[in-house]
């Protein structure tokens, strides 16, 4: 019996499993699953020199059905110093979610110690679920260390996955960082919970490759009455801060 997973790879397709279910509809894939699969596809694209992901922009505006999914990528611009890669997910031949990744080489640069996040570590906080699907314990463990799920204002949470993205394969820390910050609207959404606020995109910016199991997402939301909002997150691992994430929220009244 292998570890639980978001997808099972079979005959060139990725079959979504229960952890991949969207919290809003249950007929679609959640952003962590689709975003993780797109990031993995970009990391698998061929490269002529060692490169690592510096930026990824994921479009989630159209929901990806909870059905066997094809993933493919294309190098748009190739170079030794940087590379631009597109990836897309298809269900029944139709493109559902897309991503663009910027990969860069590991050159030298000065080091400036990032400001410490000043928050408790994952072992010092209670276990708290963030969403109805990505609960506490399985397939991801969450520890809320600032704010709370039903409170206004922002918050921060640690995430560790105990399910594979693709069954039988360890996901990279970069893929897990993308998956970890997708549910940030669970704790920072700029509105009360009688609104629906799916995120229609997810963008990450990496100053280095993340490391270790746990990812900290410090999320804050801005919303100024125009019907959309912006989540801005600072991302850390056990060593400290390493990047940023943003999500566009589109608000509507359910029912």
């Amino acid at each position, binding site marked *: 019996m292998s570890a639980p997973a978001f997808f099972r790879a079979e005959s060139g397709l990725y079959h979504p499993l229960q952890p991949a279910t969207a919290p809003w509809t249950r007929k679609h894939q959640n952003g962590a699953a689709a975003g993780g699969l797109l990031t993995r596809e970009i990391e698998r694209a061929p490269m002529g020199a060692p490169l690592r992901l*510096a*930026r990824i*922009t994921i*479009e989630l*505006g*159209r929901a990806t059905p909870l059905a066997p999914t094809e993933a493919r990528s294309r190098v*748009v*611009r190739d170079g030794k*110093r*940087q590379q*631009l890669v597109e990836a897309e997910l298809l269900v029944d031949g139709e493109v559902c979610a*897309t991503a*663009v990744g*910027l990969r*860069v*080489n*590991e*050159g*030298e*640069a*000065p*080091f*400036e110690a*990032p*400001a410490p996040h000043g928050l408790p570590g994952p072992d010092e906080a209670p276990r708290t679920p963030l969403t109805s699907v990505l609960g506490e314990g399985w397939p991801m463990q969450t520890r809320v260390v600032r704010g709370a799920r039903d409170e206004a204002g922002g918050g921060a949470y640690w995430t560790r996955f105990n399910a594979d993205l693709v069954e039988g394969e360890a996901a990279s820390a970069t893929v897990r960082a993308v998956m970890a910050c997708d549910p940030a609207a669970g704790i920072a959404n*700029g*509105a*009360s919970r009688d*609104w629906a606020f799916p995120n*229609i*995109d997810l*963008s990450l*910016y*990496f*100053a*280095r*490759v993340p490391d270790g199991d746990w990812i900290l997402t410090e999320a804050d939301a*801005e*919303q*100024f*009455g*125009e*019907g*959309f*909002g*912006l989540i*801005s997150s600072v991302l850390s691992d056990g060593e400290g*801060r*390493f*990047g*940023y994430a*943003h999500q*566009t929220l*589109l*608000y*509507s*009244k359910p029912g």
Partner: protein
Amino acid sequence: MTTTPAPPERRKRFYVADGDGFVPTGLSTSPWRRDAQNGLALGLMVVHTLEARPEAKAGKLARLTLDILRPAPAQLTRVAWRVARGGRRVRLLEAELTAGGEVAARASALFVAPTGPAPEAQPLTPPGALPQDAPERLIMPRETGLLAVRDVTRKESPSGRQSLWLKLTADIAPGAPASPIATAVAISDFGGSTLRDYSADWAYPNMDIAVHFSRTPRGEWVHAASAPMMLGHGVAVVDHHLSDLDGPFGRAHQTLFLSRRQKAARA
């Protein structure tokens, strides 16, 4: 800081129209190569052509990304936008910018068209300092068409963020002053100024700009509170917090590529 606007026919511009394209003027020249265009001008041209699209009038811009693929020659420039994904509430546009017939940059723009009621707005807090508070600290010559005023350097700031105000005094093209969104994209190209203390030993060009909006910006002045995240891995990721005179409206990032400057050999 008070300037009397020049009459429209005498205002400087970054481009002049030529058929279905635009020819860059001296204001668009790259500081690194005289025969190429600078990234700020390319960003202005991308926004100028984007705002002429019907999608820009029907929706609100939530995100704009620009990737410069190679130096854009200072020649006839065109931006061809197409709808990559067109839904009722979310539209994604993509563009290729060609200069001298070669593709030099790519851009994408995410528009949203919310329907129905919106949640009650969070309160807006204006930035602490205003542009007129620091009239002496222009960081660009006035001839550049930019009023770029730095009121706080990173060293002076308790938050470690540089504080910069920007207003464009030149038009993008004849009769086309920079919109608030164009000014927002322009200030997001100033991340290199956060690394000025390294400028003797390092070069740090950027090849991308990404701007995320939480509302539509207003007015001529845009503010950025900016800091780099630089962890010794070849790049610095600049984090810009963007505001107008009313308060915050978004965030932006640039990836700066660090490389050691070649020391000039002594004769």
